[in-house]
């Protein structure tokens, strides 16, 4: 609750922008993504240049009107002049509209490709990668960072080119019309550029402070909202409010600083503009009187001088966008550069019809460097055999699933299915035959049926059959829309038990030859549901090679053999009766587990 802690959180959470605003290497890389759509880019740029030129029409027409029609007092053909200008305006409108639209489409197409590429790439990453990378960060890469690149394309880079072009065009045009007066205008440019650069640097600092503080405040607020009951029950309201006030005041101060900066900058810029204006009038006016400059030219200079500075002000602003985009592309390409590890060896073997024999041959495995989870583990499981693996938490039981499905790979030794090393098998052919039921029955947004068949085409009858076999059919039919009932994120409308049954149905629908079950006793499941889950699990194991990471004793009773893992080693092996007689690790575990398992009271 101290803002100090929050500060650390926000500082680390905010993607700090400190890098360079231009990085040739990154730009070249970005270009490979733009190249397929370059027709759009060129037409957008063409339109941009066209309208930069058209922008000169106004002052030019005014100059002509004054010098050739108004001052001489001859108005024949004057209407045509006005009509021509109006036509240019309409064309310019069309060009600007088309330019904005075309650039947007370009940006969207590039982003579409990039997002698909990142998503596809992440699908090929090994689980090890996901262990280390927070989901929120990956989502940010897909969304905010890609959008920052979009900014770079649509408003950053293109208008940067546009700005540079108008700068050159206007400056050139002024020199052409009257170089002496043009030099007067240029005199002020360094001042404008200087003031802009200084102010922008200050604003960047302030923006960064504001963003950090908003992040901190919102993080705090979010946590408070989630934990409000705790705050209230522990009479913490006043202190929490004081903490909130501090963060709120911090944000206010940063906001007020930005108000102050703008209050100085905006009027200052318009003051500089007015001074230039006055200067041109003074010097130009004198030249008009001397007949060295026409009145129309003077008015043209007065109109264009301000427009010359606009690109300079914009250029400074683009710096922010460029910097943010460079940082974002660095992060995006960083992800795309991560080698995809969940891929097949070439040539990969395809598993023929699986009988379901499993062999662990002197397997050593660690999630992290030398932190061995499995130490020299060897065992064989015959096709159709049912085996339970027991052991205390941290004994390495779950890693068996990880290795057999090739979610991870063993550092030493080999895991074989029907005598074939899993590393030489094609992932999809392996995983299609090894069914896994995880501890957390993950439910996707989508209908009940979709949650069973996932993205695989499957007749409805097979879906329903699977659900019936694991007793999920009953609760599904009670849902208002049955199998077509849409489930929300994480299946929030289902109970834990129902989600478990749905996961069973999913496993059964895919009809695996080998089944691996993480049979964690689920908390908060009443006895009736527990019984249903038990029965369904047995149905599921029927006729398959099964490895059950068992936490329930009742499951152990139905297996042919028990493997006991202890601190990464396979220490005992045998039937329940044999192991009990041995009075070793298993017997002790049994004692302990049983006590945990004393049934919940239910009426």
């Amino acid at each position, binding site marked *: 609750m101290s803002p100090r802690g929050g500060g650390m959180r926000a500082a680390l959470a905010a993607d700090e922008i400190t890098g360079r605003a231009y990085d040739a290497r990154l730009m070249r890389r970005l270009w490979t993504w733009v190249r397929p759509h370059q027709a759009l880019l060129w037409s957008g740029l063409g339109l941009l240049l066209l309208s930069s030129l058209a922008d000169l029409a106004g002052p030019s027409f005014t100059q002509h009107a004054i010098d050739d029609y108004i001052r001489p007092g001859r108005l024949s053909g004057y209407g045509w002049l006005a009509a021509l200008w109006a036509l240019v305006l309409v064309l310019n409108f069309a060009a600007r509209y088309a330019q904005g639209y075309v650039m*947007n489409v370009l940006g969207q197409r590039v982003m579409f490709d990039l997002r698909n590429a990142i998503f596809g790439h992440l699908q090929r990453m090994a689980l090890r990668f996901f262990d280390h990378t927070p989901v929120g960060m990956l989502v940010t890469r897909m969304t905010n960072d890609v959008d920052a690149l979009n900014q770079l394309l649509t408003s950053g880079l293109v208008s940067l080119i546009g700005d540079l072009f108008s700068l050159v065009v206007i400056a050139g045009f002024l020199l052409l019309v009257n170089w002496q007066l043009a030099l007067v205008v240029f005199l002020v440019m360094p001042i404008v550029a200087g003031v802009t650069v200084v102010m922008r640097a200050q604003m960047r600092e302030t923006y960064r402070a504001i963003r950090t503080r908003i992040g901190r405040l919102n993080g705090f607020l979010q946590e408070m909202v989630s934990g409000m*009951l705790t705050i209230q029950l522990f009479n913490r309201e006043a202190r929490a409010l004081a903490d909130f*006030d501090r963060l709120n005041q911090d944000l206010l101060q940063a906001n007020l600083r930005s108000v102050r900066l703008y209050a100085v900058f905006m009027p200052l810029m318009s003051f500089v503009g007015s001074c230039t204006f*006055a200067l041109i009038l003074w010097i130009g006016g004198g030249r008009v009187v001397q007949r060295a400059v026409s009145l129309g030219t003077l008015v043209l200079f007065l109109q264009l001088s301000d427009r010359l500075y606009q690109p300079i002000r914009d250029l400074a602003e683009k710096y922010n966008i460029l910097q943010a985009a460079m940082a974002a592309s660095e992060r995006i390409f960083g992800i795309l550069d991560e080698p995809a590890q969940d891929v097949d060896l070439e040539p990969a073997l395809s598993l023929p019809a699986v009988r379901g024999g499993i062999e662990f041959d002197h397997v050593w495995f660690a999630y992290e460097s030398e932190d061995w989870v499995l130490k020299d583990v060897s065992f064989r499981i015959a096709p159709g055999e049912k085996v339970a693996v027991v052991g205390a938490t941290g004994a390495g039981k779950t890693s068996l699933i990880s290795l057999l499905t090739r979610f991870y790979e063993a550092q030493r030794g080999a895991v074989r299915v029907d005598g074939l090393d899993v590393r030489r098998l094609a992932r999809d052919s392996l*995983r299609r035959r090894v069914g896994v039921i995880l501890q957390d029955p993950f439910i996707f947004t989508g209908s009940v049926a979709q949650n069973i068949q996932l993205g695989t085409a499957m007749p409805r009858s097979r879906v329903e059959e699977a659900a019936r076999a694991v007793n999920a059919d009953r609760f599904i039919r009670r849902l208002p829309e049955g199998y077509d009932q849409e489930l929300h994120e994480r299946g929030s409308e289902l109970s834990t038990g129902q989600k478990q049954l749905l996961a069973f149905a999913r496993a059964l629908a895919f009809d695996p030859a080998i089944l691996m079950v993480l049979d964690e006793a689920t908390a908060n499941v009443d006895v009736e549901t527990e019984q249903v889950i038990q029965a369904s699990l047995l149905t599921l194991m029927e006729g398959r090679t099964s490895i059950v990471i068992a936490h329930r004793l009742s499951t152990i009773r139905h297996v042919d053999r028990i493997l006991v893992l202890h601190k990464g080693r396979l220490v005992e092996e045998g039937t329940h009766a044999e192991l009990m007689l041995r009075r070793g690790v298993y017997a002790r575990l049994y004692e302990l587990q049983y006590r945990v398992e004393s049934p919940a009271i239910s009426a």
Partner: protein
Amino acid sequence: MLKSRRLRAALWSHRRLLAFGLFAIMLANGFALLQPYLLGRGIDAVTHGDPSRLPLIVLAMVVAAACDAASRFGQRQTINRVSRLIENEFRRDLFRQLERLDQRFFQGIRTGDLMARATNDLSAIQQLLGMGLGNVTNTIVVFVAAVVLMLLIDWQLTVLSVSLLVLLSFGFVFLGPQIHRRFLAVQEEFAALASKAQENFSGIRVVKAYVQEDAECRAFAAINQGYVEANVAWARVNSALWPLFGLLAGLSAVVLLYVGGQHVVQHRITIGQFVQFNAYLILLSWPMIALGWVANLFQQGAASLNRVEEILRQAPAIASPRHPLQPAAVSGALTFEDVTFAYEGEPVFEHLSLRVPAGSTLAVVGATGSGKTTLVRLLARVWDPKAGRILLDGQDLRDLPLDFLRRQIGYVPQEAFLFSETLAENVTLGAPDAAAEAVDRAVRLSQLGADLEQFPQGLQTLVGERGVTLSGGQKQRTAIARALVRDPAILVLDDALSSVDVKTEEAIQEGLRAFRKGRTSIVIAHRVSTIKDADHIVVLDGGRIVEQGRHAELLAQGGRYAALSQRQHLQRELEEDDPSAPSRGETP
């Protein structure tokens, strides 16, 4: 928008700044409008071949520009400041209100929705105030003044050119809602895209286990396509907005050139006035655009204000009484008197009565959904009964000061909520001034001490994303320490040991035995071993007490409790005797 009393009051409280800002606007516009006049005179001086007045005019222009800039500084420093101040005050009000609101409110609103109101909606209000307050006044002032000045020069020219300029205001009025609607569609598609990605990454194990990578890529590409289409639809309208302004402003300049040029030739106005006129038009174009913009922001801002006020208007259902009793000490005797309670529709309890003598231990057992948690939460007035009363030492809870009542209770929920602070701060959450010895004792009794040794900085270790991630058991132990350190008269353990292993549970139970002396305890548990020593055991079923008494009494009664206990016992014997006996899964 201005119908909001709260907003009016907020504006009124900053009336000095606002008045100053208004004055600055008038001043700034006065100086700004001087520029075209001076320009016109300068041009006239030049065309008449009389440059002697030029230096004076130029000097006046610079002075006027300086005064203009100074006034604009004043305007921004007052008006824009006020918008930030009001935003800050609203945010504070909102937070304080959230602290007062009860669970009924929090359960009726999604966290995301609440956060959106506290962030997006507040900033929409701020933007409207920042843009609106200054720009509306500015536009009115500059429009009236400039048009009067223009009319004085040439009314025909004024009517023709200004009428085109007025169209600028309608740019946002017509296109704005379209753009906004399409923008909302973009945001919706964005949310869909983000949640698809989020879901895929979170469920990546399932995706891989079922070889769904390609199917997922196809599904993602479809959503990605939807996002692109929404964006392009937005761009189709949005790209027109600023070019349209350029077109309208340009056309009004064309009209001025055409008609004004003729008027110069006809000697109705001087060429200086013609240039001056042109300068007025340029001066007017931005305020006209801004006016339309504000009108557009207005709708969104009003909707946002409404959403924020919806929260601020809520009356907390649970609050201290107006004239609370001020009890001195609490002995901890609790009485439920004919209590009826319902969250919605179906009552959880009907006419429930129960007495817990001071210093005794009550155990509550029952299946999920039997109302155990609700029962203990009624005690802390998380909810109030629909009918009947709950008494603490003979006083209705609703007559006691709310903070006083809650201070008497050490509540350990099933799911402990820890804040991203240090462990020390989490433990002393409800007793920030607790002495070091009290903290030590709580840490010892809750068995959190052993965990602390594993952490780099002991009690000063940060919890959460930026610190250590605690296991379920560690969270529960922290929550227990948090409750003990309050030194409560009433200790409530709501299935608080479910994630703690058996050995640790025994140690905690042992420690609590001494702690519970002289305190009233309520223990909700699933394991019979946890509760059999209680002074009184209550079996809840569907919100009714179906049995109550001591462990031995209940066993003797031969009812449900006895049956359950018996069933456990039988099962143990079965499983110990014969490994091939049918599992619990198959016994009816």
